[in-house]
């Protein structure tokens, strides 16, 4: 008694989503992809490919504009700006990625655990998160720097911990909704364990939201890490980092030579904007693909 009529709509739609997902990204989407690819390439190969030593200082070139192979000129201490941007991509991009990854991992775990077990566990964890919520990330990073000494690691961990309640709160709602779907109940009745249900079924079904959260946090982390480095509590000068470069460039800026700070700021803004845009798009398109 199988269905005799073939289903033309279903047939057509089976192959459509992936195609549609790509075509809907548009020009801005492709530009974003290019920016992210470039940032990643720089983060990985930048320190190898840079044309000059980023820390080689020659004060006679201080605040000298672009010429020859020095495409972006020199900073206030006579160091090659292009080389410092390429060198600094690693700590800046990977640092922000590390913060986003840790925050999403903690937040997702907490979200799924509270949604799954509910009751008193949910209530106490949620209350704890609310307290943590009250601490701004930068404040926590300042405290961490005071306790463990200023470094990228302590600043990054502090930020990750400060961000995680934010992720947990957003994802908990999604996880609760998914938990209430009857397919979860049906598999529970099959005798599936909590671990399998959470990891194999619940997690993949909120994954688009997790990715979206990750991209938003990546942007926040990049800006906050730069601010922390600017304050001198994160990456330490003379190590090249885009946040440090903004900070170092401020004397040149006051002297009417803005290219150092401006280049670093532009790099940060471009990467943050590209990642946010792509994350949002990914979230929106995955929503109508499956349901």
């Amino acid at each position, binding site marked *: *008694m*199988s269905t005799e009529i073939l289903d033309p709509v279903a047939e057509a739609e089976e192959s459509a989503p992936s195609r549609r997902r790509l075509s809907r990204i548009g020009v801005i989407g492709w530009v974003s992809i290019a920016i992210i690819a470039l940032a990643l390439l720089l983060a990985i190969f930048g320190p190898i490919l840079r044309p000059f030593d980023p820390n080689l200082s020659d004060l006679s070139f201080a605040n000298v504009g672009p010429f020859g192979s020095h495409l972006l000129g020199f900073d206030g201490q006579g160091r090659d700006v292009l080389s410092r941007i390429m060198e600094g991509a690693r700590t800046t991009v990977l640092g922000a990625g590390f913060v986003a990854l840790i925050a999403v991992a903690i937040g997702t775990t907490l979200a799924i655990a509270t949604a799954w077990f509910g009751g008193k566990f949910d209530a106490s964890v949620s209350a704890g998160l609310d307290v943590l919520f009250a601490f701004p990330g930068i404040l926590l990073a300042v405290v961490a720097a005071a306790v463990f000494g200023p470094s990228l690691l302590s600043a990054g961990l502090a930020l990750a911990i400060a961000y995680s309640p934010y992720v947990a709160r957003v994802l908990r709602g999604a996880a609760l909704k998914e938990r209430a779907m009857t*397919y979860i109940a*049906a598999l529970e*009745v*099959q*005798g599936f*364990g909590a671990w399998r249900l959470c990891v194999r079924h619940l997690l993949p079904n909120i994954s688009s939201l997790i990715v979206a959260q990750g991209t938003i946090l990546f942007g926040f982390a990049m800006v906050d890490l730069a601010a922390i480095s600017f304050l001198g509590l994160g990456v330490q000068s003379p190590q090249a980092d885009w946040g440090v470069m903004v900070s170092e460039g401020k004397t040149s800026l006051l002297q009417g030579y803005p290219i150092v700070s401006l280049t670093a700021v532009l790099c940060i803004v471009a990467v943050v904007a590209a990642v946010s845009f792509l994350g949002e798009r990914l979230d929106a398109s995955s929503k109508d693909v499956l349901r």
Partner: protein
Amino acid sequence: MSEHTSATEPVLSVRGLRKVFGTQVAVDDMNFDLLPGRSLAIVGESGSGKTTVARMIVGLEKPTAGTIVACGRDRSKPARRGAERKLRGREVQIVFQDPYSSLDPRQSGADLIDEVLRVHHDHHASDRKRIVGELAEIVGLDQRQINAMPKALSGGQRQRVAIARALATDPHVLILDESVAALDVSIQAQVLNVLADIRDERGISYVLISHDLAVVRQLTEEAIVMQRGIVVEQGVTADILDDPQHAYTQMLRASVPGPGWKPQRMRERKAAADAAAEAAAS
């Protein structure tokens, strides 16, 4: 079909079942026995507690009091160990109402059944594939449909996948929680026929949770009528529908539209019920 129950021993036995949410009694003192290959309907309107009964039987709710015995084993308390949970999963299964939320949107029917088989048994991959094929045929899905993602399936086809999932572990009892209520009339008939065939072939028992008295008549031999958590009438389905004894059952029966049906307003119905009660008393 069943190794540890003889034909006369019930596959499902419920005694003094009770569930209280806060101060509200959702189910009060429910008792029944279900024999192998037989079907029982639990009938009622929203808030009657019929779905709570289903959820307690499959272990999604914990009874406040009473016992539930399936295949000779008590399941009134939550399963502590994974092995016990799986064993219970092979005894009683459930098919829910909403075909849209009852499947993981990222898993095809074939992958779903394959996963269920992997969790329960140590079958070889080729055996699992064979069982998937058999189940698809039983519920009337072709190769393309069983391998399709839920999004590409209609409501009726999804419900067939859900039935195949429930049958994958060869359970003795299948709870049908309004399982055909959301389907179009023509599809509902197909699925009801599939369910009848499965029962004939496998000797499985059904507990049908439903508000639809015509579906109840078609699929079950015995029925329980619930109103606000209380069992008001229990017996042979045909008798209950042809000659309802309790006033509430009579009202339910009279509310079903059919040839010559005249809808009555509450005030008129109440007057009629009072008159009938008086006549019965004298």
